[in-house]
Each structure stands twice: as structure tokens, then as C-alpha cells.
């Protein structure tokens, strides 16, 4: 089961600060969405309203066609795991928190939770508060995955995890998605590491939705050009260069925008190698560049 997401003129304010401003979303269910944005862009606030953690100041949120706030039919089908997780009390052993989740979540999969406990090597008898930062994050991710909620969202849920655990997390999201399609949203700053599993990308900037595109479509907005440094410099002259890397005499430049037929012919004639641009470079450029 998957759930679609619709928001209209969604706004969330904290006193004088507008965290989410007039966001219209129409996201079909059954996809993996990447939610990107700089610090303070409104990602956490957006996810909080989608999960019913916060009531919007204005506008509407509909999940699976129904309003979400205080609607138990919908909230039980949503799981939002944040970087602070909040899945249980710090004094509770992990086994007790799993037992609690089983009572509260209609779609909870106990067997899968047990498998994940082993896979993430988490100690059942230890309390949540005694875990390391990375272990707490892994436990939060476990709760999100084992909830089998048709809409599962992770908001920087990987914080503190080491690289192998982060990879395990991504592999598990993908494996779960293939085996039992549901709607996933991953909010992250680890763009290059996590973007390979995204199907669509949402970029928030200063509370507003800057773009919503298929990952491949977004990547086609730029080109990487690799070759001898002097030739690359001549080739990209006058174009919008997002970033450059140099290794000895070889240079790689990331260019924003698509290349015309003439440029493609010129690149081939000079032996330059063209490839996709790094999503992170595009993201930095689209959200205002380095500053």
C-alpha cells in the first residue's frame, strides 16, 4: 500500500518566522523522494506537518486523499523518524520500545523488527539512553522500517551513523521498497551518498518549494566536462560553471545548462569527456551558490 501527498498553500509559522511558505505539493504514492534544502530551508517543518506533528498555520495537507491532523486513520499509516527519533523514553530497554510499537502500530512487523535488530547489531536489553548517537539513529531507522507505514519519512535519521551503517540503512530502504512498495521521503544533507536511491527530488529553499523533478531530469540540467585543463577552460568559457576539480593536467568542470549540438560536436572534436553532473553541485547552484 502506498499513500499520495497533496498540500495546497501550506504555511507554517513560528511567531515571526515563516518556516514553510505557500507550498503546493502533489506527490504520487509508491516512490522514493529525496527532500533537499539548506539548513533552515523548512524541511523538518514540512515533514512535521505531513506527519501531523504540527498543525499548519494555513493551507491543507491531505495524505491518501484525507486530512492528516488528528485523523487516526491516516496518522497510523504515517511514520516520521527524525534525527532525535523520540521513539521511546531514554530509560526504556529497546525490547520494551519494540513491544510498545507493536501495540501502537497496526502495520508493525515484529519479525522484520527482530531481523533488523540483528542486522544493525542493536542490543535488545540496553536502554535507549545508553546507546551511542549512531546506535540511537539506527534504532530510529529500524522503527521506521518495521512500522511498514505506507508513508515512511526519515528526517536526517542517519545522524551519527558510521558509513557501513548508513549504507545498510539505504540498502534496507531500497530492499523494502522493492519487496513492499510504499512511499518514502528521505530528508538529507548527504546528497551524493543518498541520491542514488531517489526517484524524485524536492528542493526547499527559504520555506518555498524550489523544484520537484525526477532525479534523471534534474541531473540533465547540467553536464560535467573532463579533459586537459586548458581545453576544458576554453570549452567552458562563458558558461555557468558550478564547480571544478583538478588532478594533475586533467580537469573536470561542472556546467549548468544543457549543451547545444555545436558544443557537443566541439567537445567530441577536442576529446573531452561529457557526463552527468553531481547533484550536490546542482543543489548548491540552485539554492544560491557558495556563500
Amino acid at each position: 500500500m502506498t499513500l499520495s501527498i497533496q498540500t495546497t498553500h501550506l504555511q507554517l509559522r513560528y511567531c515571526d518566522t515563516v518556516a514553510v511558505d505557500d507550498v503546493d505539493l502533489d506527490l504520487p504514492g509508491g516512490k522514493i523522494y529525496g527532500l533537499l534544502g539548506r539548513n533552515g530551508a523548512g524541511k523538518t517543518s514540512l515533514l512535521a506537518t505531513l506527519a501531523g506533528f504540527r498543525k499548519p498555520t494555513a493551507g491543507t495537507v491531505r495524505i491518501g486523499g484525507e486530512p492528516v491532523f488528528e485523523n487516526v486513520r491516516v496518522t497510523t499509516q504515517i511514520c516520521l523518524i527524525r534525527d532525535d527519533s523520540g521513539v521511546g523514553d531514554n530509560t526504556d530497554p529497546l525490547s520494551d520500545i519494540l513491544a510498545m510499537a507493536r501495540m501502537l502500530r497496526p502495520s508493525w512487523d515484529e519479525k522484520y523488527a527482530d531481523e533488523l535488530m540483528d542486522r544493525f547489531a542493536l542490543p535488545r536489553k540496553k536502554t535507549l539512553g545508553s546507546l551511542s548517537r549512531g546506535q540511537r539513529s539506527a534504532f530510529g531507522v529500524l522503527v521506521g522500517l518495521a512500522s511498514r507505514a505506507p508513508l515512511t519519512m526519515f528526517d536526517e535519521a542517519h545522524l551519527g551513523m558510521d558509513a557501513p551503517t548508513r549504507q545498510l540503512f539505504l540498502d534496507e530502504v531500497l530492499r523494502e521498497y522493492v519487496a513492499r512498495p510504499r512511499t518514502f521521503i528521505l530528508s538529507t544533507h548527504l546528497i551524493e551518498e543518498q541520491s542514488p536511491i531517489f526517484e524524485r527530488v524536492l528542493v526547499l529553499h527559504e520555506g518555498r518549494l524550489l523544484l520537484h523533478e525526477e532525479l534523471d531530469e534534474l541531473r540533465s540540467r547540467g553536464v560535467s566536462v573532463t579533459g586537459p585543463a586548458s581545453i576544458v577552460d576554453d570549452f567552458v568559457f562563458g558558461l555557468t560553471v558550478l564547480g571544478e576539480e583538478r588532478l594533475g593536467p586533467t580537469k573536470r568542470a561542472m556546467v549548468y545548462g544543457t549543451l547545444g549540438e555545436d558544443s557537443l560536436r566541439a567537445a567530441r572534436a577536442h576529446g573531452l569527456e561529457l557526463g552527468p553532473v553531481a547533484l550536490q553541485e546542482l543543489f548548491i547552484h540552485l539554492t544560491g551558490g557558495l556563500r
Partner: protein
Amino acid sequence: MTRWPIARYLLSTHFIFLILVLLGFYLAIGVVLAVVALLTDITLSGVDIGGQILNWMAVGYGFSAFGVLTTMLVHGRTRREFLAQHAAFQVILATAAAALVTAMYAAETAAYSALDWGQKTQDDRAYESTSDYPTIFVAYWSMLLIWQFVGAFVGTAVYRWETNGILALLPAAGLLLVSGGVNSFLKLPFVDFEVDGLLPMAGLTVIIAAVTWAMTWATVRDIPLRTQAA
């Protein structure tokens, strides 16, 4: 879907834990009494002295309600469910704890009688003696229920409004003072009324609890789930 999942969760975990804590509390009182008896004559009811601490334990447990609320929201439950089911749990807990306390008075009366100890109660209690079990039960039920409810109100208010939530202490203090006239716990000199009879005591308890619950409802009904400091 499981009916009343929050109440079931609380009954299967918190309830058992709290009853065990209460039993441990009275066991500790028994140990203290045994030690004191070696040094001097016992003239006071230990269970009754313990009653002066129970209200603070009740308000402290009630205060922790905001932690239960936030966890329930993370696991997909609603504020409305919490308001109904947590309150129902508090009623059950207060009833069970009051029954346990009454049983402790009965056990103590039997033990003191066998040992020929004096069993004087605190001044201004609602009950005439330590064997006035119906009044003991209702007075403790009233105190435990109201103090838990007030704790939950203040806890959720502080969670919601942070420093400004401390203002919730003003109505909370007012409710506790009024309840002092009902069940005679926290009986301050300027609370100049008393309730006679079990039914009026129970009825006023329900009214005070309902007022407190209404204030908790106003606090919780659209309470935002904040991001905690990592």
C-alpha cells in the same frame, strides 16, 4: 486495529511498575517502623505519614504525561486518543492505588493491634480513624486522581509553552487548594470548607478532575511535537 492502544500500553507497563513502586514504598515504611520501634514506642500510623508523600508522587507521575504524549504521536497516535485514554488510565490507576493504600491501612491496623502500638493519624484527615475504610478509600482516590490530573496539565503546559507554561501553576495551585477542602490532603488554614459524606467528596472530585482535564484538553488538542535537542 487494537482498541484503546494507549490505555492498553499504559496498563501493561506503567500500571504494573507503579503498583510495584507503591508496594516498595510501603515495604520501606515497614522497615523504618521496625527500626524506630527498636528505639522508641510507636504512636503514629506509618501508612498515614506516607500519605503526605503520595500526593507529590502522583503529581510527579502526572507531570511526566508529556513524555507519553510525544512518544504516542511519534508512533502514529493522536492527541485526542491520548486525552481520552491517558485520563482513563489515570482513573484506573488512582482507583487501584487507593484500594492498595486502603488495604495497607487494614494491614497496619491488624499489625499495630497485635503489637499494641498507637495508630494516630495526621490532623485534619477526612477519615475519623484508620479503620474508616470507605472514607480512606474515597479520600485517597480523590487525592491521587486530582494530583495526577493536575500534574498532567502542568507537564503538558510546560512542554507546550516552555517557560511561559509555568503560569499553569497558578490554576493548578488553585485546583489543589480547592481539592484540599474536598479530600483534606494539603489542607491549608485559608481553605475554609470541608465536605461531609462520601458521595459529595466523590462528586466534587469528579468536577475538579473534569475542570483540570478540560484545561489539559485546551493545552494538548493542537500541541506541536517539537524537535528535541539531539
